[in-house]
């Protein structure tokens, strides 16, 4: 039999920290700060609407781009939250999670050989989706001195005649970094000068702890060259419902709808009905969860400072990204030893790109009690490492 697999899929590297993930699964009693999804269950009123939709027999496909009712609510929501204006029936598409929107957007925008600029550390799917779309990922290593924000100079430095797409993902997984309005404004001249299109993954927008999230699409001139991706997973604690959306100019969204139609048909109907309720009536729930995350964020930050772990103050998502460079071992080695010694799992920073080397991604999507237990273990480990190093030659 011949080898049936495509060259592109073969060229994709499996995650470099597979080994570490396997080690965690072999230790069932280890506790973890490695989870990238909310610890809250979906608010009951949203779940109720899902159940009710089943009772009413809403078990059929919806239109390809999603329930018109939901798209209207998304349009209203984008407007009241981020000052964005999208025509609900032409400029909004409901997808299977933000993940599908990322994949579909890239496949609709990339020609063979086009370069897709991806600042890292960042979520793991942008690079592989770019490759499968026929593009070439070009990575920018974000720097801790800039609190992992992207600067205009860094962007300018990687531009070539083949540059086509810029992927922005702020608030950021894994660093917790945000881009404030002034940071985004600084990028606009570079984006316009080189005629780039932006895919802005704003899935963590509601988890911004210093003022209001600003979408790059709301800046003058940017709306028609930006696809905004958002979803229900993080803000509404709805990861398992698999529901996201993309908003953008009609010429892009209509093409995305075509691809989405062939690949997916439509997002789950049940989830779409629940999502309508999420957008209409769950502001208070979202606020409560955000406040809980914020307390945990501050608590962890103060504990990390106290135990001498360096980190900048992350203002978004639910991650803290402390540096472990002073211990003189790699992120993976640190994580492996921490797991073996204290049965505590955290994700090595290099899982999110080379520039994450020397850092750990610590998730605070855990109850305060769970965090306290984990912090105790981390503290013991850090003390051990420090003592060991002070006596070593």
């Amino acid at each position: 039999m011949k080898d049936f697999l495509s060259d592109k899929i073969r060229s994709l590297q499996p995650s470099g920290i597979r080994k570490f993930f396997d080690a965690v699964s072999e230790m069932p009693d280890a506790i973890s700060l490695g989870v990238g999804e909310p610890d809250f269950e979906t608010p009951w009123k949203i779940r109720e609407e899902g159940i009710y939709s089943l009772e009413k027999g809403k078990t059929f496909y919806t239109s390809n781009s999603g329930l018109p009712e939901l798209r209207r609510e998304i349009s209203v929501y984008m407007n009241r939250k981020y000052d964005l204006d999208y025509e609900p029936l032409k400029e909004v598409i409901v997808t299977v999670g933000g993940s599908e929107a990322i994949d579909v957007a890239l496949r609709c925008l990339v020609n063979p050989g086009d370069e897709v600029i991806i600042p890292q550390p960042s979520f793991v799917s942008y690079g592989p989706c770019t490759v499968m779309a026929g593009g070439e990922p070009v990575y920018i290593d974000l720097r801790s001195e800039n609190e992992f924000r992207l600067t205009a100079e860094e962007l300018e430095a990687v531009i070539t005649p083949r540059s086509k797409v810029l992927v922005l993902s702020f608030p950021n997984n894994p660093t917790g970094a945000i881009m404030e309005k002034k940071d985004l404004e600084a990028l606009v001249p570079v984006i316009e000068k080189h005629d780039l299109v932006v895919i802005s993954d704003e899935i963590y927008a509601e988890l911004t702890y210093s003022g209001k999230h600003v979408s790059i699409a709301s800046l003058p001139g940017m709306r028609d060259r930006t696809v905004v991706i958002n979803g229900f997973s993080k803000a509404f604690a709805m990861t398992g419902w698999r529901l996201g959306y993309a908003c953008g100019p009609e010429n892009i969204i209509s093409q995305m709808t075509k691809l989405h139609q062939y690949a997916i048909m439509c997002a789950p109907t049940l989830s779409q009905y629940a999502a309508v309720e999420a957008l209409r009536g769950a502001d208070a729930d979202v606020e409560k969860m955000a406040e809980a995350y914020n307390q945990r964020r501050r608590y962890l930050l103060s504990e990390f400072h106290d135990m001498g772990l360096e980190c900048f103050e992350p203002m978004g998502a639910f991650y803290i990204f402390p540096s472990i460079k002073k211990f003189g071992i790699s992120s993976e080695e640190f994580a492996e030893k921490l797991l073996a010694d204290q049965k505590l799992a955290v994700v090595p920073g290099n899982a999110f790109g080379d520039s994450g080397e020397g850092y750990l991604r610590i998730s605070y999507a855990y109850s305060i009690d769970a965090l306290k237990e984990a912090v105790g273990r981390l503290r013991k480990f850090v003390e051990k490492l420090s003592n060991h190093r002070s006596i070593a030659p």
Partner: protein
Amino acid sequence: MDLRNEILNTLEKDSRISPAELAARLGADETAIVNEVSSLEKEGIICGYLTLINWEKTSEELVTALIEVKVTPQRGNGFDSIAQRIYKYDEVRAVYLMSGGFDFTVIVEGKTMREAALFVSEKLSTMETVLSTATHFVLKKYKDHGIVFGEEKKDERMRIIP
């Protein structure tokens, strides 16, 4: 939200948090927290620090009765003096003035149903101002003070998710 409300909202869920931890979680100074909590206590806004117990899981027998009480309000004193005569009893856990079909909800705890019922018939019904009572016994508590009883929380998530 201002610091006061943040303190109240946080302590309402867990009153054991130390001032140092509260300061860290709210991003405030520890001394400021201590001062604020103490003035909240003095002003009678924080009225106590209790423990929520599911007595059903202990060997202790305890019944809770919810009593609807209709009264004749007294000239000059309205309902307050009647409420006071009711809440002075140690058996009474709570008294609320109600809108609607009756005047007070009185929550009474006793060791047995008989004990609680006797309190109603001997103490409550015999008050001059009380016109009528209707006693309902609590059979099972599912949720109290925002906490679901007997719910075991298990983390269903995968332990590593990018």
